[in-house]
């Protein structure tokens, strides 16, 4: 018997396993499906009791998410020219007109800039640091690595007040740069440790071969180490992005206008013109998409064992 031989499970056990997986998937997906469905409900349907499973879908939630609206009298409504486009029609059915765009687009872009910006920075710095820790003899490297890890040992929010005061003094409050730096600082320890693990797994001989073949250390790093660390970099990037994307507490505390991200913004929709759950659900649905797309795009890297078979162990 080789170490790799595995007994083929019986068809019955396979069915049980499949049923368990499906059940688990349903449980985890149900809230997401609920949010997705709510985004397409009308406000009355969204708060109907018992909850409506079958409903007439409408884009009202999305329209409300992206616009600000003003209530008008029926007479004023009559006086207006015919509605221009679907959004206007939906709004007029509620005796309102579109007053202008909401802040959602802007806040969403802030999330993109800050989320991807801090992910990029964490990966960039993390890869260089991890490479150095993995390959060079660094004085006190164990202590330094522990220090880096220790920054992750308390909940970041514990230092919220000092950071708030510091940011106010430095003029970093409510700036993209400030938020990128903050999220990078939180993510970098994770990035260094994860990436060091991945780079440790890459045999040094590859770089040494490149050094012999006429490349500098940096060229060897870029052309030989990075392609092989791609899997590790991709999964680390996903972790960093998910944290930065979902972060709520610091975003509430440190941003209010120009650099406000989507997480603190979405709940504020509730306060505008009643509890507009479809608009909140629409915001949440759209907010999920970038991480989903990012993860799906990098999935190939996560699954590909590119070093398989190249080294004889």
């Amino acid at each position, binding site marked *: 018997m080789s170490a790799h031989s595995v007994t083929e499970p019986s068809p019955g056990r396979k069915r049980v396993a499949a049923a368990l997986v499906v059940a688990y998937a349903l449980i985890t997906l149900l809230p997401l499906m609920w949010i997705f469905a709510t985004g397409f409900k009308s406000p009355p349907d969204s708060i109907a009791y018992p909850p409506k499973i079958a409903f007439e879908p409408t884009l009202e939630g999305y329209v409300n998410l992206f616009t600000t609206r003003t209530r008008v009298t029926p007479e004023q409504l009559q006086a207006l020219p015919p509605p221009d486009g679907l959004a206007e029609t939906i709004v007029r059915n509620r005796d309102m007109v579109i007053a202008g765009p909401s802040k959602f687009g802007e806040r969403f872009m802030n999330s993109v800039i800050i989320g991807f910006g801090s992910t990029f920075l964490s990966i960039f710095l993390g890869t260089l640091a991890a490479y150095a820790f993995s390959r060079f003899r660094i004085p006190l490297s164990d202590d330094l690595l522990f220090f880096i890890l220790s920054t992750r040992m308390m909940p970041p929010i514990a230092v919220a007040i000092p950071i708030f005061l510091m940011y106010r003094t430095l003029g970093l409050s409510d700036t993209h740069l400030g938020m990128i730096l903050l999220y990078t600082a939180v993510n970098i320890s994770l990035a260094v440790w994860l990436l060091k693990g991945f780079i440790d797994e890459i045999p040094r001989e590859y770089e040494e*071969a490149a050094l012999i073949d*006429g490349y500098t250390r940096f060229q060897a790093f870029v052309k030989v180490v990075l392609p092989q660390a791609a899997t590790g970099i991709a999964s680390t990037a996903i972790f960093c992005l998910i944290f930065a994307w979902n972060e709520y507490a610091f975003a509430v505390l440190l941003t209010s206008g120009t650099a406000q991200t989507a997480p603190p913004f979405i709940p504020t929709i509730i306060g505008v013109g009643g509890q507009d759950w479809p608009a909140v659900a629409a915001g949440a649905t759209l907010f999920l998409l970038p991480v989903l797309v990012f993860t799906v795009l990098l999935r190939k890297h996560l699954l590909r064992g590119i070093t398989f078979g190249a080294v*004889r162990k």
Partner: protein
Amino acid sequence: MAEIVVSDLRKEFGAFTAVQGSSFTVRDGEFFMLLGPSGCGKTTTLRMIAGLELPTSGTIAIDGEDVSQRPARQRDIAFVFQMFALYPHMNVRRNIAYPLVSQGMSRSDVAARVAEVAGVLRIEGVLDSPVGGLSGGDRQRVALARAIVRRPKAFMMDEPLGALDSEFREEMAEELRALHDRIGATTVYVTHDQLEAMQMGDKIVVMNHGVIEQFGAPQDIYDHPATLFVADFIGSPPMNLLRFEGAVAPGDAVARLGGASVALPALRQGARGALALGARPEHVRLGDDGPLRGRIEATEYLGTTQIVTVETGFGRLRARLPAAAQATPGEHVGVGFVAETLSLFDAETGRALRTAANEAAHHG
């Protein structure tokens, strides 16, 4: 091609000294072996010549030019790694072309060179395959192709056959030696396998604990080991060492082991105290006229020869005899030696005494 001169090379890793004061010369076109047990400093020495480690002190000169502190890429040498280190994200063709690309060679020249070395190593068929699916032998050939494609001054090989199956190793060893003879490149080859070293090398350096024990042609090292370590490390079974107390003077041609007189090559050096007589198994003769007495413990049949283990008053020794020779365990026999092949060691220092036979082999 190039001559490599290593002088007083030393490497320390913190408190650990990996290589201490090594000096040797690799002549142009030589197939040079660094041989020793694991941890003896042979790989560190090779890596210093290649520029993958910088020496703590000492110099390395390639073609008269001191390169000790230069990075690997400026030394114009190639390196074949034990695990081949083929770039896993490139196919065979790109792997072989990679050293040329770094020199900024034109695309057509690169293609021509790759085709040429692929022909030499008979790997034209796999040029467009990913390296992951190759057999061990093909990987080895690709690694060699990547090394020779640049036409470097010298080749460094770190146990390049170590990762191959034993049946295949023999074939690759011959191929490697044939390739060397064809392109005549100076080659420094690290191995822990004494047979490989003897079979392929023009010259062998035997290292132990970071120190060079002996430096010479395979036959000199085999016939005239300079130290007890080399005597024991080289040869299978190793040299028999009969330990005794005594004294010898320059000019003596016998050693007195207790009451027995064993004829030796004339000594050029005297010693007293703990001594050891060294005899290769094939130079042991069993017969009634031998000066020593022993009892046959075991015989091991090897086809054309047999190894007979004999217990003597000075320790156990092994004799290599023709397979047809009569040897029965339990039998008492006389033990003699071929006098001119014997070595005598000072067991205190571990060094061989100079004799008429080994004078030529031991320089300094």
